């Protein structure tokens, strides 16, 4: 699933923005640092999108335009990069993004039951955000932990050897964070 598939249950955003958002000082400092690592500004595009996403939670049209102006990369080119990558969110996401591995080893080890447990608990399917705005469920290809399948990430944390019972506890832990 690409970022463009991410739906927010209660929010619809305008599809075109005309006014760029002014990037924050922190965002600019990090983008400037990245620019020292590559011989060409264009190479920083993806990194800049991720930096903005780190601070804003997602990449709005206004943010995208802001980066485009700042790096002097055509907005259409930057949009081409943003929509290409699964982990750049062009729609708002919940506080915790669940990156759910549904690739082959996790499938063999029963990830569909785990997905069902998440669905039962949070009433969300792929691309959706729970009503309380806490969780967004996104499928990802093999997370490279197949010997401990089924696996998912919640935010930066990896959870392995998942069972339906473990899901209840994981969700509670993040809700209480």
């Amino acid at each position, binding site marked *: 699933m690409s970022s463009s598939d991410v739906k927010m249950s209660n929010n619809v955003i305008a599809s075109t923005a005309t006014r760029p958002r002014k990037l924050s000082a922190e965002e600019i400092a990090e983008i400037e640092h990245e620019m020292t690592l590559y011989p060409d500004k264009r190479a920083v595009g*993806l990194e800049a999108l*991720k930096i903005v996403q780190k601070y804003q939670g997602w990449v709005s049209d206004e943010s995208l335009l802001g980066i485009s102006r700042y790096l002097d990369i055509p907005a259409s080119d930057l949009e081409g990069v943003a929509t290409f990558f699964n982990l750049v969110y062009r729609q708002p996401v919940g506080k915790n993004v669940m990156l759910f591995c549904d*690739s*082959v080893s996790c*499938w063999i*080890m029963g990830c569909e039951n785990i997905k069902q447990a998440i669905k039962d608990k949070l009433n969300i399917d792929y691309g959706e955000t729970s009503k309380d705005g806490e969780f967004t469920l996104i499928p990802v*290809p093999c997370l*490279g932990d197949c010997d401990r399948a089924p696996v998912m990430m919640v935010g930066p944390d990896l959870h392995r050897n998942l069972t339906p019972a473990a899901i209840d506890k994981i969700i509670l832990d993040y809700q209480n964070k």
Partner: protein
Amino acid sequence: MDIAAYEASDGYQSLQAIAKGLSPDDVLQQVKDSGLKGRGGAGFPTGLKWSFVPRGGDAPKQKYLVVNADEMEPGTFKDRLLMEGDPHLLIEGMIIAAYTIQASKAYIFLRGEYIVSGQRLNRAISEAAARGYLGKNILGTGFDLDIVVHTSAGRYICGEETALLNALEGKRATPRAKPPFPQVSGLWGKPTIVNNVETICNLPGIITYGVDWYHGLTKGSDHGTKLFGVSGKVKTPGCWELPLGLPIRELFEGYAGGMQDGLELRGFLPGGGSTDFMLPEHLDVLLDYDAIAKVGSRLATGTMIILDNKTCPVGMVGNLMKFFAHESCGFCTPCRDGLPWVDEIFNEFESGRGSEKDLQILHDHVDYLGPGRTFCALAPGATAPLGSGLKHFKEDFDQHIKQKCCPYKH
């Protein structure tokens, strides 16, 4: 492992050999002699690949080394282990590789989800720089090297080496036409070597202990050790470093403990999601590149995915097809249009609506998407489990048609 522990176990010794006068050509010769083959999937001889990089006074001044750490092949879990467990091994290997081709800048193209790997690599880079192993005039050799960790954002095609270069340049990551090959014109048009994490991690041993030692590690016709993984319903799934050339049985039974109680082995993909199914009768085949090629599959990433007798083979292949369809970069028609069609047909089978005609369409796509028909190797990779699955598990496809449902669910 931190740098002190790493150094205590002969870490960075290869750089001392370089400081004592080992030339780039000497290193190249040793790597050629070692017989090391790329561990990223294709198994291309590493020394030969490096030898295509222009050398000498007329060569471009700027060259690049890029480490492919995009590990997204379904069922593959080896590079993560190396980067999390032994990041200095990769850094030392990168210094050797960069020195050989005289690249002063190296990028690690890291999968975005590998957060811990990124942290450990960045720490290892700072530690190595503080010791003078990175930066300007490394150990007085006059050789400079900087390493940058570039984190990606989740797209399988970025693992294809020319798409990876486009991604690093900030472009949409579609593959490039070859020639020119990256060794001559790669990143920003400069000579560039792309190697897999595990390939690079073989280098410190070869240079520190020598080619004879490296050859001595092996049981079969290919040289060195390899990380081998087993996932699926075995007793003790995991990943182990083993000599190339052991019988598959030793990995499957000895290390992975064989099947879980009550289950039987139906088949397995020997090296990740882009390899052809092998069968229980192949358990005595040796784990090396040629032996597995002889029975029609590929060693590839060396991470086996096990199919048991209670898991639906049609569902398993369907799962892989969904992955490939989703990850197609959309650049060429057969792959962009063909894989979603294949995926759709698997959905039909899953819900009991598969027909003989559908089966024929799947067979046709094994040809349409095969090697040489598409712009890159993603689609041919998909045809490996598809074609071999259709062949070896024909009765399961037939049962889905006859019973109008998935027999494993009912």
